């Protein structure tokens, strides 16, 4: 009998809540402590915990290495792309006020997009670091 059954079941139960909490921290960044960086770490934590219990191969089946390498620059691209969108509309780089009819609404939307970019890059960088260390000696 596998002795880690408690861990396996426990982790499977916990992971959805971790992801949900990550999303909460991400979106709550507008009103209180939180934001893309913290949320990214929590989301990456969910995958890392999965890898610790179910093994690296299983984790890489869920999130392959190539996907991680794709996501790292993608997040930065979302961020910079948001800024460049303002440039294309004749405003200064990162001027979010162009994103909606009213400037404050545009800025709120801009922050939302930029933080989404941060989430993608931070979570995938964390996973990439974890993969890099755990693949050593293979």
């Amino acid at each position, binding site marked *: 009998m596998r002795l880690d059954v408690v861990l396996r079941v426990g982790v499977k139960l916990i992971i959805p809540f971790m992801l949900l909490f990550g999303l909460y921290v991400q979106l709550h960044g507008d009103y209180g402590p939180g934001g893309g960086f913290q949320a990214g770490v929590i989301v990456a934590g969910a995958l890392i915990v999965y890898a610790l219990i179910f093994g690296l191969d299983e984790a890489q089946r869920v999130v392959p290495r190539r996907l991680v390498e794709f996501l790292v*620059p993608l997040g930065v*691209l979302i961020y910079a792309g948001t800024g*460049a969108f303002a440039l294309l509309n004749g405003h*200064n780089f990162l001027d979010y*006020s162009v994103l909606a009819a009213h400037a404050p609404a545009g800025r709120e939307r801009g922050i939302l997009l930029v933080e989404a970019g941060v989430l993608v890059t931070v979570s995938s960088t964390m996973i990439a670091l974890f993969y890099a260390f755990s693949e050593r000696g293979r």
Partner: protein
Amino acid sequence: MSAITAQLPGLQVVVPLLGAIIAAFMRRGTLAWAWATLITAFTPIIAFALLFQVWSNGPISYHMGGWPPPIGIEYRVDLLNAFVLVLVSLVSTIMMPYARRSVAHEIDGDKQAWFYAMYLLCLAGLLGIAITGDAFNAFVFLEISSLSTYVMIAMGRDRRALVASYQYLILGTIGATFYVIGVGLLYLVTGSLNFADIAARLGEASAAFPRPVLAGLAFLFVGISLKLALFPLHLWLPNAYAYAPSFATAFLAATATKVAVYLFLRIAFSIYGVALDLKALPVSTVLYPLSIAAMFIASILAVYEQNLKRMLAYSSVAQIGYITLGIALMNQAGLTGGIVHLFNHALIKGALFLALGAVMYRAGTVKLDDLGGIGRTMPLTFAAFVLAGMSLMGVPGTAGFISKYYLIVGALDAGKWPVAFLIVASSLIALLYIGRAVEVAYFRPVSKAVAHAKDPPLMMLVPMLALTFASVYFGIDTELSAGVASRIAELLIGGLK
């Protein structure tokens, strides 16, 4: 058209930054190289447009994100940083065609695209430091350029590249930390991060809190000195330059330390100098002995070095000594000499390291003993090496002579004739180490390693010869180099309190 003109300061950084991100998606080295070359070629166009705009209309201010300074981040372009932007972007553009074969030769296929992404990121960081008018934003760009530099160095073929990169990582991080502590102290007493705003408030703040202002200067000084490799804070540089991929060495030697010198000028002359009496602050007092020590000790170390890349790295430390000596003189001619040497040295060292990169490409080694007779098997490459080396020594008719001339005039103007004598004396040491390489290259029998070497392909040859030509040409036509440098020195000195 005017819409684009207004966005130029932003584009100067955004173009290479976006380019770096897109390069990171690429998998094939050649594709990434073509992309990086294209992106790099845009940057001098923007830089020249900015320089012309500044030359005719005065400083440009660009509000990042539409937030006006001092709250928002301001990109402020005046003559000094327009000059640095032109230098960095132009040298990189000239070097890019060289990169393809050299990088393909020295870096594994799957890592080449990464290398170009890091290169573009580093370029964006360096241009960012040069263009921003915000002390903290400069720190962020400093970190961007440094982190990408660590990666580039670590990609060297030699296993020692990893250690060199790690050494630089530790020292570079200490430098950046000191810089940010200095900025923190200034923020504490002035409540601002904008360079111009700090300068406006610093005089009053210094009357109330003299010590934090002085401590801030000390932290900024040491932090930036680590980055620009001022003797004795240069220890990271020889190994980093020696074991990094050849192209990275040439790129970094021509740009990275120069941008750090720019940041130093900005802090010393545009912040402290505007608010306080710069000559009463212990800047020159510290810079004099360290610059002269760099000129001599680093040059002598270069004479005894067997690895040519390390030899040139020590020579870089010595040449930085000349630049900081020009700053320490704090008079019109001296400062002109420092700034023009910043420009000339970038061209000269770029040419020399590209020549060594070509030797690495053909002969696979840059150890002096293995290179007997290489002047005969790689005639054009070594002709470039010798010409650029003569410019390094300061032979009349070359760019190096112009820098030394202004420095000597500056030293005499300051009434420091022993310094003028030391400048000449240390130049003679350059004759020794360049001469040693020439002796091996031309007067020894052809050794085994170089017997089948020949000049590199055209794509590598042309950038190398172009930079060599420039390092001689700017000794004859000094309009763009000394002419602009002298205007900058005038503005900096004129702005002093």
